[in-house]
């Protein structure tokens, strides 16, 4: 009988601790499939963040080094500069990459560091219990915006991918989602392209993934998938934001 579906080799045989309906486990699955398909298991280093996905190192069967909150891009820079033969990715949430780590992210992108940022946007701080994130939508209720995010007081949702795309050293930036089989396939394609741009030594790459957090959104998994389509993608439209991977210096 032909085997059509199996656990990726670089995904450890450990049950996920993530909540039902959480997007992390889908992204982990997609990433480990790619690590297998691109033959990277023995030459990739991942940087998981503080937060729900701190335990990513329990699931990815690759070398991993924990980072302080927001410092992923700097840690990845250090690793890559010290040992350029490895492929390095950071796995960061919205608070991590778009609030406390804004400077590290933009400057790593600007230096064109050959690293890949996997940016999970679920519009809240998950692990700490659902506080406002930089990407929280206008009027969205969170534990620290109990009356809804008031943009006059709390500012606007930060479009970090668009900001990073403006930076010269960033070569590939795409926003995807993991709320449907079609979007999951697009996510995989985007991450493949991002990792390939790093392998080719082109520059900084980032894939932002709109990811459901049913627990903190107070929704069922199905409702959370629908909320991404109906609400999140209005503020954060899906698609390729920047791709200069095909361009040469002459362009």
């Amino acid at each position, binding site marked *: 009988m032909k085997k059509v579906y199996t656990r990726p080799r670089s995904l450890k045989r450990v049950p996920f601790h993530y909540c039902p309906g959480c997007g992390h486990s889908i992204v982990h699955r997609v990433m480990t499939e790619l690590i297998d398909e691109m033959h990277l298991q023995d030459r990739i280093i991942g940087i998981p963040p*503080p937060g729900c996905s701190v335990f990513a*190192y329990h699931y990815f069967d690759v*070398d*991993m080094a924990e980072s302080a909150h927001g410092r992923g891009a700097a840690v990845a*820079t*250090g*690793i890559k500069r010290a040992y350029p033969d*490895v492929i390095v990715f950071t796995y960061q949430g919205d608070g991590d990459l778009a609030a406390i780590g804004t400077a590290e992210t*933009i*400057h790593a992108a600007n230096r064109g560091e050959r690293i890949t940022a996997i940016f999970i946007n679920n519009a809240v701080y998950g692990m700490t219990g659902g506080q406002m994130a930089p990407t929280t939508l206008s009027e969205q209720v969170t534990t620290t915006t109990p009356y809804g995010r008031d943009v006059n007081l709390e500012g606007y949702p930060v479009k970090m991918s668009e900001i990073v795309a403006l930076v010269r050293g960033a070569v590939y930036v795409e926003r995807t989602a993991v709320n449907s089989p079609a979007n999951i396939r697009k996510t995989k394609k985007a991450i493949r392209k991002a990792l390939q741009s790093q392998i080719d030594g082109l520059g900084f790459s980032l894939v932002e993934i709109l990811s459901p957090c049913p627990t903190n959104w107070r929704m069922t998994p199905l409702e959370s998938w629908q909320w991404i389509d109906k609400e999140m993608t209005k503020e954060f439209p899906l698609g390729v934001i920047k791709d200069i991977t095909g361009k040469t210096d002459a362009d």
Partner: protein
Amino acid sequence: MTKVLMNGNSTIGEAAIRAGCQCYFGYPITPQNELTEYMAAHLSRRKGCSFIQAESEIAAINMVYGASVAGSRAMTSSSSPGISLKQEGISYLAACELPAVIVNMTRGGPGLGSISASQSDYFQATRGGGHGDYRTIVLAPSSGQELADLTHRAFDLADKYLVPVIVLGDAMLGQMREPVEFKHEAPDELPVRSNALRGAKGRPSSIIKTFTSKPAELEEINWSLFRRYQLIKKEETAYEAFMVDDARLVVVAFGIAARIAKGAIKNARSNGLRVGMLRPITLWPFPSEKVKDLSKKTKDFLVFEMNMGQMIEDVQLALEGKGAVYFYGRPGGVIPTPTEVSRVISRYYYQKGLKSAK
């Protein structure tokens, strides 16, 4: 080997390169800029080496963390306000058992303070500095030559014990030009540390982490660090004892203050006062046993620091009440002269009746 005339900051840079430093990440701050500039000129183009002027001190220390994860000999440098920003990263380095060298060319504080020489970061350096229960080895050079020697030693100690090591200098040491002899040539290649992450080739995948949801597991990590710290205390405590054998008053001073005190003590000796000095070279571990040992013969200690009195607490702890401790300090970046300090010495010497003591 011939001597070269160099400012202290550049001396550290050259010594680091000769110790096999492969990665330097820094951010400009006075009075240590010559070091960052030296690495830009001399490290950045070396084969297998990397220099980055980072976007912040926080980024720089985290780049050092990354380079250390990958098994590189890595260093960053800054001065007091910048070192405060690096504390988060130093705590992570300590927790992850990652070697690194951090240079602090101390300036006057608190706050933005001044750019003049000070020793006001003693507490921060010797008590861990960041959050959590950890220590860093702290080396306190007092001359250009020691900047070279101790920078080299810092890299070796960091690798030997898998701990971050602080080189605690100051603005004066950094700016002063002195003749220096470099005793080592840069190594062609360094062995790769066994806990380095470079991809799981030919071995199972590996994790460098600090977080655990199990308090008992974290307790064991703390115990394990503590056992290593005990070993460091036993093996690596270093000091200089200067004219202490017949001393009735022992001056305790470190770094540039000890250099000033030495001049003062020579003055005092020429006037017939029996004064000596204990100069801790490792501030952590502090030479407590030596202080205790000295108290068998000498009962009077004068602690001299360029701050409001920080190391004095370690001297008092070491003495366990078995001696009198006096203090003279100048904070804020003021640099006292040997004459000034010798006046303080003779004041205490006569007031405490040491001239007529048996």
